[in-house]
C-alpha cells in the first residue's frame, strides 16, 4: 500500500513538474532572447543559448524608444481607471450585498450581463463618439473606456467580499448610531480592506493589459505599453529582441504585485466568480 502511494505520489510529482516546465519555458525563452544580439535571433536553426549576453536590447528600449513614455502612460491610465472603478464598484457591490431591494436579482443578472458583453459591441459607437468629443488619444478618455471591462468584475468581486462579513457587525455599528453610509465607511471598509485592495489590484491589471480599446483609441500621446510593444514589429525592422525586452519590462510589475498579494487575490476571484 505504501509503495502504491509512493508510486502515485511520484507520478503526480512528475506530471506537475512537466506542467511547470511548460509553464515556465516561454519565460526562459523570453529572457534569453532579450539578452542576446539581434543578429543571433535570425540564425537558422535557432540556438537555445547564445554566446552573446548583453543588456543591449534593454538599454535600447529604455533610452531610444518611446517605451518609457508608454509605460508612464499605462501607469497614469491604469491608476485613474482603477480609482474611478472603485468609486463606482464599492458602493454598488455593497448595495447588492446588503440591501434587499426589489429587483436586486435583476440588477445582479445585469452585472453578469455586462461581464459577458464583447468589447466589439461597443467599439464602433465609442470610436465615433470619442472622435466627436475629442477624447481620442487622451489619458482620461482611455482610462474611462477601460472601465467597460473593469467595473462589472469589480462590482462582482466587492459584492463577494462584502458578503463574507456577517451582518451582525454592521448591525452593531448601526445600533451605535451610524447611518448606513457611515457604517460602510467606518466599519465595513476597514474589515474588507485587504479584499477591496485586491479588487483594485485586479482592476489595475485589467487596465494594464487591455488591448483592443487601447489600440483603437490612441495614436501617440496616450498610447499605453500594451500597444507600444506591438510597434516594434514595423516597417523598418522586426526587432524581436526589443519586443522580448519590452515584454519583460511590461510583465514584471504585474508579476511582483501578484507574488505579494497572491492570497487575497485568489480569495477574491474564487469568492466572487464561483458562487454564481
Amino acid at each position, binding site marked *: 500500500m505504501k509503495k502504491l502511494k509512493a508510486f502515485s505520489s511520484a507520478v503526480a510529482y512528475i506530471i506537475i513538474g512537466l506542467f511547470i516546465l511548460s509553464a515556465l519555458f516561454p519565460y526562459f525563452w523570453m529572457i534569453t532572447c532579450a539578452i542576446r544580439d539581434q543578429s543571433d535571433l535570425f540564425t*537558422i536553426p535557432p540556438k537555445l543559448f547564445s554566446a552573446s549576453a548583453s543588456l543591449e536590447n534593454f538599454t535600447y528600449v529604455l533610452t531610444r524608444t518611446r517605451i518609457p513614455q508608454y509605460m508612464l502612460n499605462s501607469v497614469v491610465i491604469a491608476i485613474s481607471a482603477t480609482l474611478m472603478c472603485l468609486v463606482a464598484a464599492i458602493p454598488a457591490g455593497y448595495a447588492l450585498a446588503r440591501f434587499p431591494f426589489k429587483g436586486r436579482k435583476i440588477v445582479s443578472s445585469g452585472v453578469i450581463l455586462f461581464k459577458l458583453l464583447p468589447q466589439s459591441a461597443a467599439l464602433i459607437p465609442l470610436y465615433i463618439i470619442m472622435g466627436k468629443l475629442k477624447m481620442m488619444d487622451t489619458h482620461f478618455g482611455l482610462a474611462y473606456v477601460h472601465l467597460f471591462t473593469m467595473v462589472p468584475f469589480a462590482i462582482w468581486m466587492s459584492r463577494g467580499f462584502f458578503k463574507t462579513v456577517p451582518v451582525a457587525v454592521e448591525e452593531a455599528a448601526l445600533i451605535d448610531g451610524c447611518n448606513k453610509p457611515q457604517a460602510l465607511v467606518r466599519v465595513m471598509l476597514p474589515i474588507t480592506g485587504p479584499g477591496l485592495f485586491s479588487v483594485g489590484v485586479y482592476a489595475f491589471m485589467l487596465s494594464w493589459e487591455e488591448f483592443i480599446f487601447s489600440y483603437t483609441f490612441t495614436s501617440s500621446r496616450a498610447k499605453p505599453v500594451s500597444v507600444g510593444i506591438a510597434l516594434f514589429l*514595423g516597417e523598418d525592422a522586426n526587432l524581436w529582441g526589443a519586443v522580448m525586452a519590452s515584454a519583460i519590462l511590461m510583465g514584471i510589475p504585474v508579476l511582483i504585485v501578484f507574488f505579494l498579494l497572491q492570497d487575497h487575490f485568489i480569495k477574491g476571484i474564487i469568492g466572487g466568480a464561483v458562487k454564481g
Partner: protein
Amino acid sequence: MMLTKKIGSIVLCLVLLCAMVPVGASATEPLKVEGEITVWYAGASESRVELYEWAKAEIEKTYPGTTVTLEVIPMAELASRQMTACQSGMGPDVMSQPIAATNGFMELGLLEPVNDLMVCAGRDLLKEFNEDFFELMRDGDVLYGVPQSRTALALVYNKDMFEEAGLTEPPKTWAQVLEYAEKLTKKDENGNVTVYGFGLPGTGGSHIWYRIIPEIWGAGGDICNTEMTQATLDSEATRKALEYYCSFYKNGFAPRSMLENDQTATSQMFASGSVAMTIENVTWIRNNVVEKNLFNVGVALYPGMDGINTAGLGGWNACIPASAKNKEGAAAFINLVTGKEGMEQQLLMPALAEVLSAGDWTDDFYGPYSTMLAEHSRDFPAFENTAGAQTIIMNMVQSVLSDSATIDDAIASAQEEIQMLLDEQNAD
C-alpha cells in the same frame, strides 16, 4: 461727345489697370505664414525625422511667431487616422501620405488644390517634377499634392553568395530567377536549409501587392481595366504570375516561414545572410545593409516573365486637407520639405527632378533603382479601398501557398471580391 469718350476710355483703362494690379499682386504675393502649423507624418526612418525637424526649425526662424507642431503617426494607422480626421474636419495642416492614399482623398473632396498656394511660394510644380508623378492626384490642371519621394522596387542579391555559386550576372527572367534560387539554396548535413535562394513575403497586404501585381503586368495582365469598372484578375496572366510567386515556397527555395513573414522579416533574413535574393526598396537596403557594410549588395532590374517587369510606384506625397486651418503655413512648410535642400534629406528617392538628376544616382547601387523609376514604373490602379484590395490579393496568395485552394479557385474568388470593391467604388 469726343471729350467724354476720351475721358471714358481713360477712366476705363485706369480701372482696368487698377483691376489688374491686385490680380498681379495676388499671383506673386508671398505667403502669409503665421500661427500654428500642424504636420502629420510617418517618421519611418531617421532621415525623415531629421528632415521634418529641420523644416520646423527653418519655419520658426524665418517667420517668428509661428509654431510648427510635428506629429509622428505609425505607418499602420497613418491612412486611417488621416482619413478620419479629414472627414470630421479636424485634420492637420500638412499631411504626408503614401501615394496610394492620395487619390482616394482627392476623390472624396478632402484635399485642397495646391497650385496657387505653391505658386505664391515661388514654385512651378509641373516643371520641377516628372509630370507622371501627378497622374493620380490631378483633376485637369488642378493639382492636389506635392511629390516628396518616388520609388520603384528592384531585385537585390548577395554578391558574395553569387560569387560562391559561380554566378556572374543577375537573373533577368522568371526562369533564371528560379534557376538561381535553386543554386543558391544551401543545406547543412542534416538536410536542413541554412540559406534560402529567394525570399518573398507571405503576409503583409501592401508588401505582397507590390510584388505580385508587377508580375501580373509582366505576364500581360492586370487587376482591372483602366476605367476601373471590371476586374480582370481571372486571366492566364494571373495564373502564371501566381504560380511563379508560389513556386519558390513549394520548391523549398523560399523560407518555410514565408506565410508568417512580411517583407520586413524577409529583408531581415536577407541582411543576416539567410536569404540570397529578394525584392526590396532602396531605403531599407541602404540603411540596413549598405551602411552597415554587411556584405556586397548587388542590385538588378526587376526580372519579369520575359524581360524586365514594370514596377509599381511607391513613395510619399505632401497634401493639404481642405479643412486645414492654416493653408498658407502649410504651403510654406511643404515648400521647404520639397525644395532642393529638403529633397536632399528626403527618403529615397527624392522626387524633385533637379536633385534626382544631380548626385550619384547612377552608380552600381542606385543605378538600377533610378532606371526602374525612370523607365519601368507606373501607378497602381487607384482603388478607394486600397487596404481591402490588398487584403484580397494577400488571401489569394496565402490560400495557394498553404494549399487550401487551387490556383483557379483562389483567382476566381479574388476576382469576385475585387469586382465587388469596384462596384462599391463606382456606386457613389
